[in-house]
């Protein structure tokens, strides 16, 4: 009797990227379908480089990337068809309106126009942008721009959404809307892979958290598993037995070791 292999939305093996020094150094990572995965790490750890390689924006020097079983290096177009990428700097055009932007993105992903239009209307309403649908983006705030970019990422219903610091610079209201959209997406079966410096977001939203330092995955698991790996099980930051350590304590403990070793 054969045991069915777990279906991974993303599977990375031995990923390497060197610039002047190794940015990503033999990274192995697997994210299951429908999982909300947060990638944490100090500045310069290789998080953004990893995500950019997954999104097909830069080519790795070595290793493999499979997105929903598709070899992203051998067939990047097919892999991109099921993915969406959002960076901390919203990728939109100032001179287009949100509707025009979504129409353009739908065209790039070959979404049927009537379907794209319905989704665009729903997304803009959901993100509180319906009233601004026909205004050019040039006068939008950072939060509105990020929401337009998010709508663009969702208009083609991607199976895997990759986000690099999507909450940077957003006010509380916009951040809550973005988080709510992402959570809904994960509940609907989408896979979310996100880097963030806001540890509370990772703590509350992620099913699993990966900690990356010096281009390598140094710890991975649920918050409880990370606490155990950091030696914080059952104790908080003060050492009392009242509860688990916060993710911040756990994260700092985890990244401190490789940093000291380096």
């Amino acid at each position, binding site marked *: 009797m054969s045991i069915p292999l777990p279906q991974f939305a993303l599977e990375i093996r031995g990923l390497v990227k060197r610039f002047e020094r190794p940015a990503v150094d033999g990274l192995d990572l697997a994210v299951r379908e429908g999982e909300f995965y947060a990638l944490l790490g100090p500045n310069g750890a290789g998080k953004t480089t990893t995500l950019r390689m997954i999104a097909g924006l830069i080519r790795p020097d070595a290793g493999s990337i499979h997105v929903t079983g598709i070899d992203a290096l051998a067939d990047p177009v097919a892999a991109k068809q099921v993915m969406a990428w959002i960076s901390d700097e919203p*990728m*939109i055009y100032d*001179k287009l309106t949100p509707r*025009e932007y979504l129409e353009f993105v739908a065209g*790039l992903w*070959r979404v049927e126009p*009537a379907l794209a*239009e319905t989704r665009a209307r729903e997304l803009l309403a959901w993100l509180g942008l319906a009233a601004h649908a026909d*205004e*050019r983006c040039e006068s939008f705030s950072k939060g509105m721009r990020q929401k337009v970019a998010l709508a663009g990422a969702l208009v083609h219903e991607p199976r895997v959404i990759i986000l690099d610091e999507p909450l940077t610079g957003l006010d509380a209201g916009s951040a809550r809307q973005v988080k709510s959209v992402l959570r809904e997406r994960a509940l609907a079966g989408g896979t979310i892979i996100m880097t963030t410096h806001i540890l509370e977001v990772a703590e509350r939203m992620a099913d699993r958290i990966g900690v990356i330092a010096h281009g390598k995955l140094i710890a991975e698991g649920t918050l409880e598993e990370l606490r155990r790996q950091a030696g914080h099980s059952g104790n908080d930051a003060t050492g009392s037995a009242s509860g688990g350590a916060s993710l911040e304590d756990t994260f700092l403990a985890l990244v401190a070791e490789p940093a000291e070793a380096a």
Partner: protein
Amino acid sequence: MIQSGTAVWFAQHESRLAWRDWLAMMTAGRRERRRRVAIGIAVFVVVMHAVAYSVVGGFAAAPLDRQMLVGITVTLLLSWLLMVSQAMESMTRAFYSRSDLDLILASPVASQKVFAVRISTVTLSVAMMALPLAAPFIDMLVVRGGWRWLGAYGVIAAMGAAATALAVALTVALFRAIGPKRTRLVAQIVAAVIGAAFVIGLQVAAILSYGTMSRGSVLQSDAVLALAPDTASVLWWPARAVVGDGIALVGLVVASFILLGAAIAIVSPRFGEYAIAAASADSSPASQRRRSAAFRATSPRRALRRKEWLLLWRDPWLVSQTLMQMLYLVPPAVLLWRSFAAAGGGAFNLLVPVLVMAAGQLAGGLAWLTISGEDAPDLVAAAPVTGRLILRAKIEAVLGIIALIFAPLVAVLAIASPWHALVTGGGIVIAAASATAIQLWFRTQAKRSQFRRRQVSSRVATFAEAFSSISWAATAAVAAIDLWLAVVPALMALIVTGGARYLSPRKRPGE
């Protein structure tokens, strides 16, 4: 030690920024290029002086008659209008560019000091811009005609001051007349039109009166000389100042700087108010609303092309730049219309290279905007389409615009002279394709707003694009007369384009 917050302190701050900005523009931000830039400037200065030495001989000691006064005055007027155009563009930027304005306006320093310094900086920059071309000629006139020609430097300073004063007045007048929301676009278009209108007007007059595109034929005509005032007239003061008339020079300089001082005194106190109004206009979307249309069935290629066309169409600054290029097509269009009526073949020979050259230059600019000036590079790169398809769509967008603009002209030409139309059409296609290919080989990642500085990314690309357009224009001009002779300039054009390909980063090993 300069006291902080004073006008002098601001002037020092602005000069430091301007110097670093210029240096970054010349060296593309690379320190190791400084030596090469210095050598390049030295070579340019020597070559320009050599050229000037051979050109100015006949003028250095010529008598100051009415014909010479007309020639100098018109040259000064042309240069001054270009200065006004440049100053107006700078003034628009001073009002609308946010950069450090928020910091300055939020500080407890009187904003009028800042604006006074900024107006002075604009004056300095427009005067300095004239120097690389004017200085070698003035120097050689001094060498061959005596010290009196040094007065020309004073005239340049006066022209800079008067041009800035007029630019300030025009911009503020537009601000008041049509409001901050529309001023940005209109001011940019007015600036472009001012820069081109006089040259084009003279050419159109020359065509209509004398059937030639030479401006000189109008300026040296009996009609103009008869209309010109007496040599003692105050209208000739700028020309007299150039050749060293002390009274005229002092009068001109004093009058210009009084105008500039008045502009600063009147407008500076309200600078903060204007800047805030400009900022408020940016965030008011009322006039930007567009009617919603249903999503159209489209392919990625079509979506990319449509996006490029929309962005080009909605870029006010680019519209003004394109408008200027289009304005330069007015004289050949008039020539075409006039020659069509007279059915003369000779005039078409003039028309062919002008159209080919314009097509090459326009295609180069548009190609940079579509290929390198991508504001959402990650979005396009993350889309499920190949890089080849993206580039193809962008090139189609450029060539589509070129076809839209030039096809009607070629079609009219075809009725009058099918051979000239064929040569022009072929030349336009090749010149536009070469300029686009050069931009493709030297493509870089930039924001569309950096269009003004596209030359910074590669001087090789800039020169190759210009020389390729010139060579193809020459090829078409010769081909219109003798097809076989056109082989020589065509070879030159191919060498220029091939050389650009060879020197391009896409060709270098390891890239």
